């Protein structure tokens, strides 16, 4: 910890000023996470909180790092860094090579609690339909090799009784918006492709779904579902 205080000393900032900045970043992350239902927060946003009053170049990185440490210590949240994958829009129908943009870092809050404790005491049961929908959609895309056309995705969802045109689903409300939220939350990447038959929309797994904490669990759950349904068929 001594090195951190040395860093602050070098850039001539008092402990009080530093604490104020760290608290501001923490508050921003917590409030924004709630407002956007867990959408990633751009690093650039957090940097601006610091740079609006301070010019030191290394300061934002130090403040963001300490805010992350404090969120872990106080709330048990990990401020997980996501590296945004940006697929440049392509004119041809060929799948594009995903490019990682170094500047496009973002953060999400992830609970560090034991999964059993989390699901038993923390998980908001009334919001279970949202995570259930996310699991189904991500699984479909995953089983399609990480990429699927919009048409095929809705074809699969219709088999579950979810219609693209339904704006008043009893649980999800507007189905199209529910899918769009997964794009905003960076579970999915939406890309417009131009082919011989005109434009088509493609969905692929985005950085949050590709994060090993999610993809690992996803594979486990899929195998559980498959083994359960196989066992049921045998019976």
């Amino acid at each position, binding site marked *: 910890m001594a090195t951190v205080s040395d860093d602050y000393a070098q850039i001539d900032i008092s402990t009080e000023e530093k*604490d104020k900045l760290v*608290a*501001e970043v*923490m*508050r*921003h992350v*917590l*409030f*924004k*996470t*709630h*407002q956007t239902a867990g959408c990633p927060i751009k690093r650039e946003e957090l940097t601006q909180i610091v740079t609006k009053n301070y010019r030191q170049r290394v300061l934002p990185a130090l403040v963001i790092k300490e805010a992350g440490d*404090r969120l*872990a*210590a*106080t*709330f*048990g*949240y990990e401020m997980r860094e996501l590296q945004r994958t940006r697929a440049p829009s392509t004119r041809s129908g060929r799948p594009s090579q995903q490019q990682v943009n170094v500047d496009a870092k973002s953060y999400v809050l992830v*609970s*560090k*609690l*034991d999964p059993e*404790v*989390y699901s*038993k*005491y*923390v*998980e*908001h049961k009334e919001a279970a339909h949202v995570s259930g929908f996310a699991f189904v959609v991500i699984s479909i895309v995953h089983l399609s090799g990480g990429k699927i056309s919009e048409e095929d995705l809705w074809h699969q969802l219709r088999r579950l009784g979810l219609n693209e045109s339904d704006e008043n689903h009893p649980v999800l409300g507007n189905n199209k918006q529910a899918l769009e939220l997964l794009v905003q939350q960076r579970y999915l990447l939406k890309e417009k492709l131009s082919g011989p038959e005109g434009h088509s929309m493609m969905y692929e797994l985005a950085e949050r779904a590709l994060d090993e904490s999610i993809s690992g669990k996803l594979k486990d759950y899929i195998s559980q579902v498959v083994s359960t349904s196989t066992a049921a068929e045998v019976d």
Partner: protein
Amino acid sequence: MAPLSWRHHTLLQALLSRGPLSERDFHALFSAISGGKNPATHRHLFNDTLLKINKELAYLQFELRAGINQYDGTVYYGVVNNIADEESKLGSKFSVPQIAFYKGLLEAIVHEAGNDGSITNIDALNTRIENQVVIADASQGSQSRLPTSITNFSLSQKEKTLNELIQDRWLSYTPTGKIGLGIRSFLDLRSWLRSNDIPSCEVCNEACIKASSCPNEGCNVRIHVYCLKKKFSQRKASRACGCGTEWPRLEGEDDGAEDVNEPEEDQVPSANQHSRTRRRGVKSELVEENERAGPSARMTRRSLRSSKAEAVEAAQEVPSAAGPSQSTRASKRRKN
């Protein structure tokens, strides 16, 4: 910065994820994560836990606080934000006209404070929102310069917003089927309510939204129904108001139903009385005073009213989505 344990994290994450929890649920959660220790019997441990959490939350200007739903007397725990700043404005998922509508409803409900503390569904939908928007230049033509989102805020949008506010517990349906404040409003706007010229309860000194009034029309004394039950639960307790009028019996109130000899919390023998009373400050003042309130209780002095401007500013704040919510500490309680 001493890190909190996974137990503290569980309590905090549960409140942030699920919103305010009733005392029963919060105690059950505490009991489950602390190896079956019931907060009622392990008050020391419970208060210590909350104290430790609040020490850490103070860094962020947050607070884990208890508050009472005045319509049914249920105690709730929630995490609230104590300052209004740019960050806290992000906490809201509501639009400008929706927030204006909430403010209008809040005003209408507070106008009924001390009586029923609720309004009918029709009254709620007829609430005007135009005067809830602050316009920089309040000249004569200002009405025409209201944002279209305000002027075009339809009845169906009001109905949708009303349902959302009830769902998010900013508002609630009272036992009589009318619309009143929700637990989030009681937790968040506590200081605003206290500083907004709303009659205070004679027993606990909190703002009376839903309360029982003294039968004497000339007397302004008001007491929460749950405080009233507590105050008159002992046989020896005089049922007379300060003005000398006899307070009528409430429905379901037995004549001295509770045991007179049962000690009040402050009188419970304790090996470490000093540390016990010191730690009791952790709990919300509201709950603390309700537990203490009785015929022998020390009366707390009415809190100093802060300026009207400060109260209005607090009211301008935005309801937050699910997590830490907005409230400005407008006044601090002074104790005798």
